[in-house]
């Protein structure tokens, strides 16, 4: 940044120097031209010139005016390629005019234009920029008094300076040449600075690149870690699923199998003593097995609540309740006061299962004839209440079903309450996560 600053300072110095040089030459020409006229030696001058010189007083005005317009153009920022090209062309044309006014004795302004132009190059994508540089350089080389004399009738500075005595002339020309060389030196310094800036820019890019590579490597490592976590998570979810399966199997089969085993052992004892009683017992066992079979079917069904996969929670619930009604002849009332589309898959599953389990319990254990289901929302909690008019249960023994319900709710930071005094009541609370689904019924 500091180098860019100093490069622009150098450019400013160059601009001022050019102004000084042009002013110097214009003054010399004006002075000697008026000198010729005042000293009545215009005829001598006439013999040495090839064209009408510009009137003395106009030379400083024209050259400085042209220089100012050139500086204004240099001030214009232009990044588009053709805009830049046009700008450079106009600047060069003006430089040429300035040179023309001062007898092609100074052409350093072209260097100034070049210095100003290359400043755009690092940022420019333009293909032709080097041709532009070559073009400017060619112009710089070709604007030479002796060469141009073939095409332009111009009066050289030397002819004007013949007005002065030879020693004064040498000093004046010497100063001009010195200023010209100074301008070139400053140009070289400027270019070196620009190159330096360019180089350090490259270095900076290189170090940034390295940093990027390091970060990239870190990212790759993190990615590998993440894949490992994902595998672990998958394993964990498999385990969870296995647990769940175990729970289901226990729920559905454990009880029946226990009954069957106990019954069959009793039968084995009874068979010889009381074959009739054994028969009765076997019937009962068959009944238990059948019941177990039904439970297994139910469990399998419960494992895959495809209703939920096909439709949303609300409809799935209504369908499930309808099916229950048909299968059991029980009266099931369902009332939902809120919308249920703001839950994720797990939450939906949980709600569905709780209601299903509760209905099954009511019918199976409570022999209920009427079941009422209410779903409502209270602040950020979804409240599900299932009550029946069945036999209830004074001393509730938490079986796998209720335990399972509680487990599922706990995972969702929800809670479960149940009462068995008057029928059986299950109250479940499921938190509604804010920002999920974005529904607000309040």
């Amino acid at each position, binding site marked *: 940044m500091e180098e860019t600053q100093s490069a622009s300072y150098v450019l400013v110095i160059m601009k001022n120097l050019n102004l000084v040089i042009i002013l110097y030459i214009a003054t010399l020409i004006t002075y000697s031209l008026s000198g010729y006229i005042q000293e009545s030696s215009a005829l001598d001058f006439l*013999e040495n010139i090839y064209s009408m010189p510009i009137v003395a007083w106009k030379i400083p005005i024209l050259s400085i*005016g042209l220089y100012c317009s050139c500086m204004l153009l240099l001030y214009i920022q232009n990044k588009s390629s053709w805009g830049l090209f046009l700008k450079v062309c106009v600047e060069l044309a003006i430089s040429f005019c300035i040179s023309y006014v001062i007898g092609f004795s100074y052409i350093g302004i072209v260097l100034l234009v070049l210095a100003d132009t290359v400043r755009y190059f690092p940022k420019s994508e333009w293909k032709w920029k080097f041709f532009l540089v070559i073009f400017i350089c060619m112009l710089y080389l070709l604007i030479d008094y002796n060469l141009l004399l073939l095409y332009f*009738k111009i009066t050289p500075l030397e002819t004007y300076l013949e007005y002065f005595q030879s020693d004064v002339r040498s000093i004046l020309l010497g100063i001009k040449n010195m200023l010209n060389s100074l301008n070139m030196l400053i140009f070289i310094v400027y270019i070196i600075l620009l190159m330096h800036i360019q180089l350090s820019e490259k270095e900076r890019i290189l170090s940034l690149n390295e940093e990027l590579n390091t970060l990239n490597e870190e990212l790759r490592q993190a990615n590998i870690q993440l894949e490992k976590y994902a595998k672990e998570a998958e394993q964990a979810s498999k385990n969870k699923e296995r647990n769940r399966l175990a729970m289901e199997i226990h729920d559905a089969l454990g009880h029946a199998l226990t009954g069957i085993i106990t019954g069959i052992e009793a039968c084995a004892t009874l068979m010889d003593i009381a074959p009739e009683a054994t028969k009765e017992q076997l019937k009962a066992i068959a009944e238990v097995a059948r019941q177990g079979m039904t439970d297994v079917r139910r469990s399998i069904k419960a494992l895959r609540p495809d209703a939920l996969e096909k439709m949303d929670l609300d409809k799935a619930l209504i369908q499930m309740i309808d099916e229950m009604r048909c299968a059991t002849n029980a009266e099931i009332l369902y009332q939902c006061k809120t919308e249920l589309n703001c839950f994720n898959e797990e939450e939906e599953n949980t709600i569905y299962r709780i209601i299903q389990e509760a209905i099954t319990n009511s019918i199976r254990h409570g022999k209920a004839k009427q079941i009422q289901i209410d779903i409502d929302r209270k602040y950020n909690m979804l409240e599900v209440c299932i009550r029946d008019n069945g036999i209830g249960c004074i001393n509730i023994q938490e079986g796998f079903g209720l335990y399972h319900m509680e487990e599922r709710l706990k995972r969702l930071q929800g809670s479960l309450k149940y009462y068995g005094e008057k029928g059986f009541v299950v109250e479940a609370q499921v938190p509604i996560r804010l920002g999920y689904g974005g529904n607000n019924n309040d």
Partner: protein
Amino acid sequence: MNYIKNKKNTLISILCIFLLIFIWVIYTNVYKQLPMFRDKTITIGVFSDSYWEVQNGYSYRILEDAIAIFEKEHPKIQVEYVSGILKKDYSEWLVEQLLSDNAPDIFFILAEDFNDIAEIGALKDLTPLIAEDNTFQKNRFYSSAYQCGQYHGIQYSLPYECAPKLMFVNQTILNNEELSISNEDWTWQEFYNICQKATKDTNGDGVIDQFGTVGYTWEEAFDSNGIKLFNQEGTKCYLTDDNIEPALIFIEQLEKLNEGYNISSNDFDLGNVVFQPMLFSEYRAYKPYPLSIKKYSSFEWDCIPMPAGPSGENISTLNTLLIAMNANTRNTEYAWDFMKVLTCNTQIQSEIFEYSEGVSVLKEVTESDKTLQSLMGSSENNLNLQILSDAVENAVIAPRFRNYDEAIAEVNRAVHSIIEENTNISMGQIIWNRTINKKLNYK
């Protein structure tokens, strides 16, 4: 941000364009077309004394008459001139005015300055004006005089008055020696014969006191032997031309007749020389002027064309006073009209014969009876106007290029060196030709 930047760029561009327009206006003098700078005046650059170096007391007479005629035609236009500039200061004055952009709209231009001033482009190219103007007929002018106004083939000026070079003959000597010139188409041979016979010692003191010719130089010999010394651009010298050797030999022979005596034009004035080439203006200057009558009172004299060389004609050079227009004039139209009054108006042109010593550049004026009368006025000599008219019409036009005078000086050195060194003439020609060509191309 971008919008502000664009706005800034546009503002700068507009400012820049205004600045450039301002510069253009200053450079091209367009601002002088503005009403406040315009005026209804045309200015004339003129010198007070005669172009022919004669004080005649009529310095601005013709110009004043021309102004009167012009202002009658254009009542709203004023014509002004700066009076009191002498001919010797005029060139310097004119160049100073040109350099400081104050030059008059129209100015007289001396023959020796014409090339330099035309070269730097200070003169207006008259070709378009001539082409557009139906009333301007260039064939009214003597073609030679008209051509004198050209530089590199472009008409930069119009002739105002001219004077051809003629041969003055001392009739008294011719009669005394019983010599005569056959006719106007006389040749070098005749010229040499007369000179040879006339060159003698008349009072018997052993010293030659009567001579054939004075002032007849290689220039006259070259002109009358059809020699073209330079090309039009002044880049080549033709000193090796075949016609040059006879001319050089002729000059050498003429000089030998004098046996080393150095004669001056004073000898002619005293009546001791038969021939002297002179401008017609000199003839006229001497003639009506009281002093000059006395000057030539001792002998009868006449003027005839130059003798013709073996490959040439009876012709010589023409000296012309030109009028040119400033390239930067703001009143081109009126300036052109005034130029026409000065050069094409018969009344003004015939005044040349009354108030100046030159010859009118219009054929009709020079050949008119009125002119004859005004020329004959006080003289008993017979002047054949046809000789005068032919001399002007057929005059040699020197090529127009810069440093012409220096080139002529160089040739002069060459001629003298070749004649004096008495070596092989053609070898001298080749050597000098190379030297002069080198100098011509160096410029």
